């Protein structure tokens, strides 16, 4: 274990600076939105944030340089540092808006946006400017694809051959051999869906009774929230605000699409449309949705809360898929989960949130691929147990291509799944220790760490700062899938205990 040298710090600073400049450029979009609607105070907030980003980002470019090739360790550290710094700076315009109780609350919301979680501490959401709403949803949209993917997309100078940065952001599948081309494909897929999704939502919202301008803005924001599986909405009632089954169906389709692997989208579009039928992730997702739906609908049937089977399905299935894709859009009040739905439905939602969406997507949680692989490994072990000792097995699974299931791969998957379980447990424990009821603490802890964003009411501006900090960490760790954070902790350990 060697103490990092100046060149390491310089390289980390250089690349983080570039990401910060990217965040500054993003702030121009909400600033422009505010200009359009004459929200001049909000324009001032975003220009202040923009200036800070450029001062820090360009300052880092002046005083640092890429003195080292980015290896795995540095790539991972840059990814985790960039996410942290982006959160701190991204929170500035939010905090200046005056709608947050503290700077910590603003950081919480920004981290929630980047990590596509969807838990919020913003106050008076119904009176938010269009600029701030654009910023909140943009953070979620960009965070879904990945902050570093943005930098790679624009092929920022010096970002070539930086696959470790891309992996550090929780995405580990190359759609194309070149990582920059992979990043661009991710954005092309996202923007294509954005065009289609916004188009349909605009008409649906207009039919719901809103003006054309507001229909367009709301459709754009709802799309960003749903596609990124973030679950942010511009109004405090979330999806309940629209009172429309058509909007619910469209958003449901969008967040299911958003929760699918980008590699799967790419393969289905360009190579083999039948991949969707054979892919292990889809098989795993379908099975877990069916099982958890059975839990939810059985629970709702027993609780008898809804007057008809159709309304029970409408509420139950929407919340379940929203939980399973880690979106967090809600058509019920948070207090309903524990108070009215009953323990069986509650358990179904908890399991769905913990499992989450697909790998290399905008979703969080264990991921369907990992659940599928663990199940395949379990089946293989059982086959080994009941077969003669001399038998030789080669277990395969299909994900984009046929792959061999190796012990090393299973070990890596188990490490990540166990890390998630640890994070879920730790988030729960802290909330219980702060005096919250166990069921609420479990729900909210898993929701934060799996980047879901459904809430049973625990998350509020009045909750203790310790829980806010723990949830910020949980969202960050869950989104980056631990490896980047392990590398960061290792790096900090090297600074303290490393040999010269």
């Amino acid at each position, binding site marked *: 274990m060697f103490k990092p040298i100046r060149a390491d710090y310089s390289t980390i600073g250089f690349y983080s600076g570039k990401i910060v400049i990217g965040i500054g450029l993003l702030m121009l979009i909400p600033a422009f939105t505010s200009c359009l609607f004459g*929200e*001049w*105070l*909000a324009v*001032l907030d975003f*220009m*202040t944030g*923009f*200036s*800070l980003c*450029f*001062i820090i980002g*360009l*300052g880092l*470019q*002046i005083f640092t340089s890429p003195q080292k090739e980015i290896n795995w360790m540095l790539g991972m550290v840059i990814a985790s540092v960039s996410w942290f710094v982006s959160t701190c700076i991204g929170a500035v315009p939010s905090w*200046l808006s005056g709608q947050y109780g503290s700077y910590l609350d603003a950081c919480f919301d920004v981290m929630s946006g980047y990590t596509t979680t969807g838990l919020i501490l913003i106050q008076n959401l*119904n*009176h*938010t*400017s*269009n600029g701030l709403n654009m910023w909140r949803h943009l953070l979620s949209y960009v965070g879904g694809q990945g902050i570093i993917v943005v930098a790679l997309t624009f092929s920022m100078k010096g970002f070539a051959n930086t696959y470790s940065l891309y992996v550090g952001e929780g995405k580990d599948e190359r759609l194309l051999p070149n990582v920059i081309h992979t990043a661009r494909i991710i954005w092309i897929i996202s923007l294509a869906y954005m065009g289609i999704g916004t188009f349909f939502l605009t008409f649906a919202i207009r039919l*719901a*009774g*809103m*003006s054309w301008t*507001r229909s367009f803005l709301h459709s754009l924001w709802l799309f960003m929230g749903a596609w990124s599986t973030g679950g942010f909405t511009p*109004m*405090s*009632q979330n999806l*309940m*605000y*629209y*009172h429309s*089954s058509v909007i619910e169906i469209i958003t449901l389709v969008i967040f299911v699409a958003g929760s699918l692997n980008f590699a799967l989208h790419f393969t289905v579009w360009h190579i083999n449309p039948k991949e969707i039928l054979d892919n292990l992730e889809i098989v795993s997702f379908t099975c877990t949705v069916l099982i958890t739906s059975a839990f939810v609908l059985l629970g709702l049937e027993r609780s008898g*809360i*809804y*007057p*008809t089977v*159709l*309304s*029970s399905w*409408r*509420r139950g299935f929407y919340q379940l898929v929203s939980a399973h894709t880690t979106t967090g859009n809600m*058509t*019920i*009040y948070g*207090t*309903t989960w524990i*108070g*009215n739905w009953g323990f069986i439905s509650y358990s179904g939602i908890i399991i769905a949130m913990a499992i989450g969406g697909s790998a290399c997507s905008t979703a969080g949680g264990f991921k369907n691929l990992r659940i599928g692989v663990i199940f395949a490994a379990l089946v293989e072990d059982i086959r080994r147990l009941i077969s003669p000792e001399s038998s030789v097995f080669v277990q395969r699974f299909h994900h984009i291509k046929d792959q061999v299931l190796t012990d090393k791969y299973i070990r890596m998957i188990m490490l990540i799944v166990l890390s998630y379980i640890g994070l879920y447990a730790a988030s729960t424990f802290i909330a219980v220790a702060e005096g919250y009821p166990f069921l609420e603490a479990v729900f909210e802890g898993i929701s934060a760490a799996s980047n879901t964003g459904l809430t049973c009411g625990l998350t509020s501006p009045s909750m203790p700062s310790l829980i806010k900090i723990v949830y910020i960490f949980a969202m960050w760790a869950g989104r980056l899938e631990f490896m980047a954070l392990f590398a960061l902790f290792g790096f900090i350990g090297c600074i303290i205990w490393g040999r010269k």
Partner: protein
Amino acid sequence: MAICLFIPVIWMCCCPVSTVAKEIKLKQLVERMKIFDGNQIEIKGEVAGDIMKRKGGIWLSIDDGSETMGVWCPKDILPKISFIGGYKSRGDILRIRGIFNMACPLHGGETDIHAIEIFRVQEGYPLHHPASPERIKWALILLALTVFTAAAYWWKKSLIPK
């Protein structure tokens, strides 16, 4: 005889919600849905967001500061609304008497209130968001520093041989 006199009093004290409307916070409604379900309640809050006209009625969003809830009302009972709550205005304050539904059979199991009577108790007003001189000063200082940092960056870049 004495106990007979006390029965109505005891009943009034113990019964959590009577069928007579009583002003209540939306947060209380949401937290104690089962108790209030199907009962007549009265709320007071600001009209926020949009007024959505639909077949057979209108959806209003009422924000009372503690929570927001959808209110379904027939077109003929809605008073004139001058301001709808948003970034640029504080919406009219309405007092609404209606039936609370934990899972409305008419609206796909949604939690809502079906209005019976609506009164406008206070007219809304435009909201202004003036920037304080202090904030303008800091924004300008930061902008000047940005220009300075950008100049320093380009100068440093020009020193590096291509």
